């Protein structure tokens, strides 16, 4: 499953990172808490969130997320996002609410992330 497939399934807009849509998504993780994102940090994870602040970008960078899907229609302010350097992480936005977004992805075979900071 690639980010391009994710975009199609969720009918999402690509806010940035169009050139990286062939990246492979291994798991999904939906959350609105930064610390929880960090606890479940795993490379290749698609981060799904209704938070729309630039902290999400830093968090996605640290957790090696493959991309971020902003749910619920309201798009984040791209210029704010760009201040923190969005170049590496593709950002998508969908009108779907978080439950439906996750349900659709699960239906298409995306599994949930497991906590892997535990060693």
């Amino acid at each position, binding site marked *: 499953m690639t980010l391009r497939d994710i975009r199609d399934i969720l009918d999402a807009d690509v806010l940035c990172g169009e050139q990286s849509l062939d990246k492979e998504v291994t798991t999904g993780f939906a959350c609105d808490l930064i610390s929880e994102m960090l606890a479940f940090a795993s*490379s290749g994870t698609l981060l799904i969130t209704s938070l729309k602040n*630039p*902290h999400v970008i830093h968090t996605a960078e640290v957790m090696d997320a493959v991309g971020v899907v902003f749910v619920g229609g309201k798009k984040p302010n791209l210029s704010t996002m760009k201040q923190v350097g969005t170049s590496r992480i593709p950002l998508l936005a969908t009108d779907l609410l978080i439950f439906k977004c996750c349900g659709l992805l699960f239906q298409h075979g995306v599994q949930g992330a497991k906590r892997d900071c535990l060693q």
Partner: protein
Amino acid sequence: MSSGAPRHVIEFLIREKDFLSAGESASKTKKALQQLGLKAEVAKNSAIIVYEAAMNVVIHAISGKLRVVIVPEEVSIVAEDVGPGIPDIELAMQEGYSTAPHEVREMGFGAGMGLANIERCSDELNIKSEPGVGTVLEARIHLKQKDDVR
């Protein structure tokens, strides 16, 4: 290791309510450690420790200093702040326990998982705190041969 072994130091100043600086420090730490050739897992765990430690300073303290030292044997991260201190460290370590104000939680912070995340990502963790003075947090990640600094 020989006495001429490489030693790298990265420092960050963290101020009260400067939320973006916490994330920036974490991103910079991760990039620096990757450039030094450390294993992805070590770079990520170090960045998580920096993020959470810096965020604690941003949320709770007045100001703080973060220092990341990389030597061939370990990565050590020391966060030192001037602030109210932690009255009950054992309680603060519990996942879900949080004293963060509502507006901080609205941004997605203050979940009460910070110290627990730091502990999970480190091999050693020491916290010394004096109420009304401040807190010193020291986390270490031991490096195995294969994680070595280039």
